[in-house]
């Protein structure tokens, strides 16, 4: 394996004009540039959807508040949910997968670079289409423009009868278009992981990151396809006189729920498995030990992938399924806790006996373990169907899935940002600002989402723009809203850190963490072709072997 880069004849060349450089970014098919495009695009939408969340929380800070009207509130929670799932977390994950998988498997690029660019731009235009509804749409009767049917858009609220104008059409088309992008990227990830690995890297010697993203990509294909089909059916209902979901003509609202959640629940794992992938790279490096139980981790991930396809109707315990169907989805939902628990135990065992360094990426991953544990346990509570007859559609479920998506996924994402920022930018981030970000964010997170469980237990349903003062929900909602400002401050520090470090940070070098996977063997940032010659590996930790020639990993695997 070579760590050399070809010397660039740099000084002689004048910087190219900005228009030419931007043109390079728009026309690029390089996996690293597309990865960064995905991530930058997701950061932009993170800010937008974050502001939407803040307005929602300000409205709910006290009962009978009138900061925004009910119509605006309904648009805000629809846009917040849709944006965060489809245009923040998914592009973040695709961005990191794009950037890192070829580097980790020792390839020069993704398997299909042009499909890669096509997929990114589909996703990008999907997001723009969603927000174009602010200009081109019209909502529920008399209610204005952006979509306001909720992010799972239950029928028949989406029919022409209840949703006049075009805002719902923008929602449908945005997800349809970005869905094609997601499927394209998933195909690309699968092809890259299966076909582009460097010599010596058998499937059993791949970094867990590649394994987990392979499972994620498989789930994307299985989950996004029914969603895409459902969106087309909904369009047929709205414009071609179809009656799939049109209850006034004998259609079924429940069929839409099945279509949506057969996408929606695997989607949770599409988002969380890449987060597991980050944790599975970061925790070993900062514990200075290999991942505990590699093959069990792979098996547990595949098990999660399969079981996740059979749990969707636990989102529908209140729609009046038979007791047998309810019981089936109880057992499948609880079963998924077993492989998930195995993963948590394996991460713990990786830390056990190590020498843990509390750098910012590791702090975020430890917080992830703690929060994901709680999120899993509240998930089991809701998996007990009768308990869910109370908890479902209440603020408890809102707190639960934010615990998963913020406390689990976003924390891992922040960890990944800090861990791979030196590789992507060539500069080291500020550890002080990183820790400030961590503490601000974790305080805000717990203020907001711990206390959000309580109004749910006290009977507060989700998606209400205001509430009555006599329900005992006021204090909890006040605390929840205060937490949001801490989180917002944390995110600003994070962005400040990225920008400051990019321009002023210390040079990171190719391997600042003394890590073990192939991306750390090339320059930071890596050259366009990644490696001067194709690397050859003999174990799961090629750089460990290089650094410890007397005691290489392949003796033990």
């Amino acid at each position, binding site marked *: 394996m070579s760590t050399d880069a070809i010397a660039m004849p740099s000084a002689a060349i004048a910087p190219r004009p900005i228009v030419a450089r931007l043109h390079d970014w728009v026309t690029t098919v390089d996996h690293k540039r597309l990865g960064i495009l995905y991530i930058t695009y997701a950061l932009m939408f993170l800010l937008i959807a974050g502001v939407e969340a803040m307005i929602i929380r300000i409205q709910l800070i006290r009962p009978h508040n009138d900061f925004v009207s009910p119509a605006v509130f309904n648009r805000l929670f629809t846009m917040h949910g849709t944006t965060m799932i489809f245009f923040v977390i998914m592009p973040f994950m695709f961005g990191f997968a794009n950037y890192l998988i070829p580097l980790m498997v020792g390839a020069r690029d993704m398997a299909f670079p042009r499909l890669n660019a096509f997929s990114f731009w589909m996703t990008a235009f999907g997001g723009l289409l969603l927000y174009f509804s602010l200009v081109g749409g019209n909502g529920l009767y008399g209610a204005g423009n952006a979509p306001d049917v909720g992010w799972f858009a239950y029928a028949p609220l989406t029919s022409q009868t209840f949703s006049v104008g075009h805002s719902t059409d923008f929602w449908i088309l945005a997800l349809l278009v970005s869905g094609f992008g997601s499927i394209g990227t998933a195909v690309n990830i699968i092809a890259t992981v299966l076909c582009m690995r460097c010599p010596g890297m058998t499937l059993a010697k791949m970094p867990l990151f590649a394994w987990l993203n392979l499972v994620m990509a498989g789930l994307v294909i299985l989950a996004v396809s029914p969603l895409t089909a459902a969106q087309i059916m909904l369009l047929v209902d709205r414009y071609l006189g179809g009656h799939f979901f049109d*209850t006034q003509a004998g259609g079924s609202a429940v069929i839409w729920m099945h279509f949506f959640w057969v996408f929606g629940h695997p989607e949770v794992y599409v988002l969380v498995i890449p987060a597991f992938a980050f944790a599975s790279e970061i925790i070993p490096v900062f514990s200075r030990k*290999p991942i505990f139980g590699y093959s069990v981790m792979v098996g547990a991930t595949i098990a999660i992938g399969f079981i996740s396809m059979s749990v969707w109707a636990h989102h529908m315990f209140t729609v009046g399924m038979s007791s047998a169907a309810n019981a089936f989805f109880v057992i499948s939902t609880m079963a998924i806790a077993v492989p998930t628990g195995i993963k948590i135990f394996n991460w713990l065992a990786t830390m056990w006996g190590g020498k843990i360094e509390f750098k910012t990426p590791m702090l975020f991953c430890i917080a992830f373990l703690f929060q994901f*544990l709680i999120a899993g346990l509240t998930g089991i509570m809701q998996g007990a169907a009768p*308990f869910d007859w109370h*908890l479902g559609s209440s603020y408890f479920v809102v707190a639960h899935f934010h615990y998963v998506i913020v406390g689990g996924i976003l924390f891992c994402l922040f960890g990944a940002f800090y861990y791979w920022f030196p590789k992507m930018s060539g500069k080291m981030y500020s550890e002080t600002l990183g820790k400030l970000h961590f503490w601000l964010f974790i305080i805000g997170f717990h203020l907001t989402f711990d206390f959000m469980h309580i109004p749910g*237990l006290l009977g507060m349903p989700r998606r209400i723009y205001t509430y009555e003062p006599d329900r005992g929900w006021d204090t909890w909602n006040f605390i929840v809203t205060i937490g949001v400002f801490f989180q917002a401050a944390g995110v600003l520090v994070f962005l400040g850190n990225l920008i400051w470090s990019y321009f002023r940070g210390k040079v990171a070098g190719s391997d600042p963490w003394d890590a073990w996977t192939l991306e750390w063997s090339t320059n930071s940032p890596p050259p366009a072709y990644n490696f001067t010659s194709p690397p050859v590996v003999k174990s799961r930790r090629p750089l460990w072997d290089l650094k410890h020639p007397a005691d290489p990993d392949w003796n033990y695997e």
Partner: protein
Amino acid sequence: MCFCGTGLAFADPTQPLSPTNIFAPASTPAKSIFGLSLFVLAVTGAIFLVVFALLLYSVVKFRKQRNDDGREPPQVYGSNQVELAWTIIPLLIVVALFMATARVIALVQKTSPPGNAIAITAIGHQFWWEYRYQDLGVVTANELHVPVSDPAHPTPTFIKLLSADTDHSFWVPRLAGKTDLIPNHPNSMWIDPQQTGVYLGQCAQYCGTQHAKMLLRVYVQSKEDFDRWIRQQRQPAFVNDAVSQGQRIFETTACINCHTVSGTVANGRFGPDLTHLMSRDTIAAGAALNTPENLRRWILNPSQIKPGSLMPAMELNEQELDALTAYLETLR
């Protein structure tokens, strides 16, 4: 957080935290769910304590020391015995949780109405509730009246759930879990409240602009009070010549397209039945108290009280408004 749940479950019942606390059950379905939820909270709480202790221990114990020698720790790759242990123990826990859950599902879902059960049809509308007591010949809106059920001789109420437009969900936390009202998909649920009083709740499935103010009030009454209420609701509308001007306005404007006043020409079904409007404590699905001022304000401009409500502002002048309000005030 698990502790918060347990804390709420054992809060002092004389100082209610909330009239909609799921841990203050007053009816058999809610009580069985409460029992199950205590079991689930205990199991998940125990798991939390064990795993959290392990996490805390490893973070404290295995942190890199200040005087670290710079050598890598022993490299451990895994252990099949340990993996097997933490697969089998969770599997057993899952089986136990499933059995407890299946029992409560059967108990709540498999109960069929006894002969003396009250049968009610609840119909969800954007953004109010219609209740039809088909055997008793009563139609009312927003405030559900049911008889108290003596545990020794239960008189449960079985509610058939329908929707006239979009999806809604019936959730009165102290009486039962929520069940959705879905057009073209009849559902049912049952309650047997064991104490008289007013139980609150609200629509729990997003149903459109005014989902938030689609409130539920369930009046649990003694047998005598309930029978008296039924008798009173079965009367035709009260007629009073003193308010004939208001009645004329009501019957010659768009009011009658949507509202019914039995015994008159008003037979619309799009909005709540107003035959006994004044027997209710609230108007606009619980959004405001039923006072003459609120009623007048509501007719003048419904969106002032409930923006997004489907009732249009009737564009009446002051004098018409007074007459109309006076007429409605007689509908006892």
